[in-house]
């Protein structure tokens, strides 16, 4: 019984982690049809921001939850203005350019801080599920993932900015005719996606080794979840994270985390064979 409770808790944490690392990628892909191959490096920058800020004496919660999205969002904004905006409409070229950005960021951080693994300590302790101890920090991840998902939903569904955003993505010319500047909206969307990636990096910094190449550990899962989710950002990310996160955690529990990733990938490839447009390409198409 205790074991089942612990397992259920771990599955929930796994799903929340997947939501967190996928959401930024999903925003950029769902809204702009750009697959941001630098997503993992945006997370890495978020994690470095958290490590550096907490090292400089900033309150750990601010260093983890507030600064990373701001810093990485700003970096995303700069990169969108200097590189990405020249490549809209050329999907392959944007993928290649973001891959170049990804390599460049790994190289830059390695040059600046060295190829070493850093970390921040977890700010909270643990609690008991029956005979087993579980980390309270998992609750922080759970809460952050759910609030990020909810905030994004509220933003897109109920604010004027969200309405303009959705309209621009649906029909940029019509939006432009009505007085919206699509290039501004693209800029904001890319920065928003980068900020969400930064948040994920900041929150995950205490439970993962922070190193220049840490992004690679997450991107495989994040990409495959976005593809599995399909065009609707929130519903798609939520559903695909739930499905893949559960598979990943359950298989990892039985075997090893690496086999868990293999199971996730296999499940995703099978799913994409059946539903090439992802879950929300077939079902719940009108959802957000």
């Amino acid at each position: 019984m205790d074991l089942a409770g612990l397992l259920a808790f771990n599955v929930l944490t796994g799903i929340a982690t997947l939501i967190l690392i996928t959401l930024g990628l999903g925003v950029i892909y769902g809204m702009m049809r750009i697959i941001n191959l630098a997503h993992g490096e945006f997370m890495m920058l978020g994690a470095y921001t958290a490590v550096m800020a907490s090292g400089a004496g900033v309150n750990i919660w601010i260093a983890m939850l507030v600064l990373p999205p701001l810093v990485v969002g700003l970096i995303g904004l700069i990169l969108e203005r200097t590189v990405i905006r020249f490549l809209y409409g050329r999907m392959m070229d944007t993928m290649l350019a973001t891959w170049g950005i990804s390599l460049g960021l790994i190289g830059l951080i390695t040059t600046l801080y060295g190829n070493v693994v850093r970390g921040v300590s977890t700010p909270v302790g643990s609690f008991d599920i029956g005979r087993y101890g579980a980390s309270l920090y998992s609750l922080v991840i759970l809460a952050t993932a759910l609030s990020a998902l909810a905030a994004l939903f509220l933003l897109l569904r109920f604010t004027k900015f969200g309405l303009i955003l959705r309209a621009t993505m649906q029909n940029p010319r019509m939006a432009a005719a009505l007085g919206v500047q699509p290039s501004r909206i693209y800029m904001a969307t890319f920065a928003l996606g980068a900020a969400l990636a930064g948040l994920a990096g900041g929150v995950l910094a205490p439970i993962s080794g922070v190193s220049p190449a840490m992004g690679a550990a997450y991107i495989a899962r994040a990409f495959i979840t976005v593809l599995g989710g399909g065009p609707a950002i929130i519903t798609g990310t939520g559903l695909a994270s739930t499905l893949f996160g559960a598979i990943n955690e359950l298989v990892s529990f039985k075997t090893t985390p690496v086999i868990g990733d293999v199971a996730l990938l296999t499940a995703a490839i099978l799913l994409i064979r059946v539903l090439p447009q992802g879950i929300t390409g077939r079902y719940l198409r009108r959802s957000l």
Partner: protein
Amino acid sequence: MNPALPARRASALGFAATLAIGLAILFGAPHVLDTFGLVQCTGFAALAMFGLSQGFVWGFAGVMSFGQAAFLGLGGYAYAVAVINMGDSSIPVLLSILVPMAFAGLLGYFMFYGRISDAYIGVITLTVSVILFQLVNATSGSQYRIGAAELGGFNGIPAIPALNAPFHPDEPLDIDGIWYAAMGALILVYGILRAVLAARLGRVIVAIRENEIRAQLIGYDPRLYKLIAFMLAAGVAGLAGCLYANWGGFISPTVFALPMSAQVIIYVLVGGLGTLVGPMLGAVLIQALIIAAGSQTVVDSNLGLGLVLVGFVLLVPQGLLPVARSAALRLVARVRTPRPGKAADTFATERAR
């Protein structure tokens, strides 16, 4: 006159020139270079073949494989495991081609027959190579062994027996021999790919890249032809992996890792998309730059690679070779006729993606 003729003649001329230069390098290098230079060139030949595989699948079939390193790694590991078990290198070389092809067949079936978009293909191939990297990386410990070969996790497999004369395991090749094998294989594979592209199969593959729906309406199944092209490229990458393992006598999971897949894309992009010679030149050029950059410790080489990739996407998306070639053709045309000639124009339109 058939307007395509000058382009075709130029293309045949280029093929002959490439073969001649390749053969000159093959037989000339051992006389000119010292042992160290020859070993380095063997590595270049292996990576040039890797570039060839990416150049074929991306430039001619239009399949965005972002995880070509998966096939390089599978080929290398297949060779290493098989040769340690068998002792004789003849069948392991074949396995290094067939194992990646079989894997590509399976993966490609799900991707192409699912009719997913190009971007999805890029992401899935990339993800597969990342996960293979993690999988092989996690095989440290003596319980992970295939026959006599320990996989060794992140330490890789050391002391891989080198190639030997076919079916004579007691006659291993020396450094010169491995150079002849690697460079000879590169020329051979280049010739085979040229032949494929000149044959009906290759023409259909290119037609599908140009306009998938039209090709389908004429009666070709794009899914099948893309799958064939994908498998061919995987076989070439696998052979490159075999040569790569022979080059250092060592293979580690980094052959599967993302920087490897990124590098080969940079080879193609720098050399020229839609050519076969470009990716080979790109491989040698970039690899030489990485070696040059490796001798300094101030800046990480990833930074340079990233800048090169972004720079080429933004500024020279067609790559160096096509730029140089169209410049040369324009020059020739200007010398021959007062006005810019037709030859250069048809050539440019044929080459345009």
